[in-house]
């Protein structure tokens, strides 16, 4: 049986081409790898090689023919001992591609979109009532979280710039080298791209790395490894190869460090499927979420804030306190407006709520805590109650978390809204150095108050 040589597709988008030149004639013997023709695509002239061995029987499409459809028979190839016989008529239509077996019917997708049922607010406390609490800084809470998890699991280790002997650039890892030794608390050279890739490889190899970035501004050097390698591999491997890893460090503006050290990456990372993104405000959230992040089988972006490191909050005294990823916290219940924020934005949100209360405006304040997945239900339930919403974050305005929440609220709770949602964000400028300009660039409590008054028509 003669083999038909078909017009090949020679680029991802080619549908037809010109058979520019035959380099063999009928009766020629060819073996696999021999160039038999030149084919012009829209982009280039390609050499076309024989795949099978044999003798060229008939050339069905003459050289110079244009618009030859992919999969049209262009020649026949005779195998050992075959005769050429009658030339078959060249099929004018391309051979029907093998019928592709149909896939199973689609199930309803489980995208991270809000539930269709009436959303319920999550008001469960993070720890049981009556639990003893102690005062702790965010810095201490983060260290305790890492140390507790490292005591519990040998596979957990910490790596980053200055995390070991220097005790952490912001002293988060104070004392950890002493307790865990240099095998598990590892100083890296200043080489974010490289050590992030190494940590991702270590996670593929079965370890649970915690990578500290001195700031997330420096993680831009490594963002290919975070997004392309850590976040996508589980999907690309059909579920075989997960990447249990935590990337943590300060994010956003500190004070007077200028444009290259002040960016908030919350919205960037929150966009990536395959990542989990958390951004705690309080010390208890810092601790409980970091412990959950270290145990999570997925790559987690853990966004801290330098200004918050020294702030003190209540932290429950419990053997194993965790906060689940994906659950918002209602800091303050109210009836007139919902203020949604996260990270240091909460400072402005809570200050604004206090001042608004003096004016008789009752604000409900929600700390998202997790930005991927987002607890849409809590936000929507609150907006359905208050009918107004203001979002607060420090990042740039375009494509912000607030933008996304506004769109979601519009889709899911449009009829409940009594005013357009307002997004309070950082300004659309690189962070300036001058003290007065920096203040102007950041979101402020006064701006939040003004936005609330606008949506409440006061």
């Amino acid at each position: 049986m003669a083999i038909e040589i078909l017009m090949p597709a020679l680029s991802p988008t080619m549908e037809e081409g010109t058979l520019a030149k035959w380099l063999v004639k009928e009766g020629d013997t060819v073996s696999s790898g021999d160039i038999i023709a030149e084919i012009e695509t829209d982009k280039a002239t390609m050499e076309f090689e024989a795949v099978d061995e044999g003798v060229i029987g008939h050339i069905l499409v003459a050289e110079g023919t244009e618009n030859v459809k992919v999969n049209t028979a262009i020649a026949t190839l005779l195998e050992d001992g075959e005769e050429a016989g009658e030339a078959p008529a060249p099929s004018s239509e391309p051979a029907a591609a093998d019928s592709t077996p149909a896939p199973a019917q689609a199930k309803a997708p489980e995208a991270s979109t809000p539930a269709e049922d009436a959303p319920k607010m999550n008001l469960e406390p993070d720890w049981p009532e009556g639990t003893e609490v102690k005062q702790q800084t965010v810095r201490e809470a983060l260290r305790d979280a890492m140390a507790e998890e490292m005591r519990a699991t040998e596979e957990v280790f910490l790596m980053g710039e200055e995390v070991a002997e220097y005790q952490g650039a912001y002293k988060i890892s104070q004392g950890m080298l002493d307790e865990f030794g240099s095998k598990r608390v590892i100083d890296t050279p200043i080489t974010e791209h490289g050590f992030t890739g190494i940590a991702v490889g270590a996670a593929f190899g079965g370890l649970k790395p915690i990578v500290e970035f001195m700031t997330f501004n420096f993680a831009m050097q490594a963002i290919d490894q975070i997004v392309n390698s850590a976040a996508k591999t589980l999907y690309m491997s059909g579920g075989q190869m997960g990447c249990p890893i935590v990337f943590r460090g300060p994010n956003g503006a500190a004070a007077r460090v200028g444009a290259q050290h002040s960016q908030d990456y919350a919205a960037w990372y929150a966009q990536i499927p395959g990542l989990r993104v958390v951004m705690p405000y309080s010390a208890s959230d810092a601790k409980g979420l970091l412990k959950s992040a270290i145990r999570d089988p997925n790559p987690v972006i853990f966004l801290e804030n330098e200004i918050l490191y020294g702030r003190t909050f209540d932290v429950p005294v419990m053997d194993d306190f965790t906060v689940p990823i994906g659950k918002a916290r209602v800091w303050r219940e109210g009836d007139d407006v919902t203020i949604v924020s996260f990270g240091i934005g909460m400072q402005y949100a809570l200050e604004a709520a206090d001042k608004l209360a003096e004016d008789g405006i009752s604000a409900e304040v929600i700390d998202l805590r997790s930005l991927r997945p987002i607890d849409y239900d809590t936000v929507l339930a609150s907006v359905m109650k208050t009918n107004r919403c203001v979002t607060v974050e420090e990042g740039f305005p375009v494509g912000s978390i607030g933008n996304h929440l506004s769109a979601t609220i519009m889709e899911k709770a449009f009829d409940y809204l009594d005013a357009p949602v307002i997004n309070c964000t950082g300004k659309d400028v690189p962070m300036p150095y001058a003290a007065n300009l920096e203040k102007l660039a950041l979101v402020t409590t006064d701006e939040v108050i003004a936005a609330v008054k606008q949506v409440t028509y006061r």
Partner: protein
Amino acid sequence: MAAKKATPKPNVSGDTLKNYYREMLLIRRFEEKAGQLYGMGLIGGFCHLYIGQEAVVVGLEAAADEGDKRLTSYRDHGHMLACGMDPNGVMAELTGREGGYSKGKGGSMHMFSKEKHFYGGHGIVGAQVPIGAGLAFSDKYKGNNNVTFTYFGDGAANQGQVYETFNMAAIWQLPVIFVIENNQYAMGTSQQRSTSTPDIYTRGAAFGIPGEVVDGMDVLAVKEAGEKAVMHCRAGKGPYILEVKTYRYRGHSMSDPAKYRTREEVQRVREERDPIERVREMLLTGKHASEDDLKAIDKEIKAIVNESAEFAKSSPLPAESELWTDIVA
């Protein structure tokens, strides 16, 4: 290295040599078939064939032990076949079907097998290099004696993260073998035009990493160099670099017309340095196999490859619900 060398006496048994022949031939025939399926529109996107480079992976796999890891770039079909992954699963991934190693969700450039310790299949040039060192880091951390073969090309050898990785692999003494598959062209740019040093392996010297150059068209030379590198790593002496001089016969990807080199250049390598022909000659002159024996192997390989193509065509498209699975664990 252009001239054909006298066939050396193999330092392996005839049966072993026959196995190398079989494994290299499987890769070549598989890739030819993949090229054909691409031409028929059954394989989409980018498809980078390994034809010409077969001796590299077959030689190095001969130096590997159970538990050793490997990973490479997007030119990965040969590596997967050489480490024992199922041709059906690889081909079905190329056609984007349910039976593929990644259930059709990865494609030619993104495939993995935990079982065979194959860690990808990476589409970003050079990104696999620190990941490979990280796998070696995990082995050292766990205290086992495994090594990781981290393959990359002469093009990737110019990426910054490669040298960040060399530095850390050296200071942490990681058991990683950096295999630079130098096929002389980074897509369409010759090594001469893109790379400051003609000998890439010497770049390890700046980090105190030993390296050597290997004839990548000679499976036995590759195996020998691989064994030396493995021994170095297992002895706890840290990383090792092998620059394996090889050649790809096909374009960079299926849509590359390869106008940056002459047809004669390709033809000369095929005729004078082909890694499979070389072993074939050794088998015949050493009387380890007859023409008939080799024909039988050819037939056996053809059957395996045809079966993989049939499987890849008949395996169904992934269920539409697969769109939403494996995003997070």
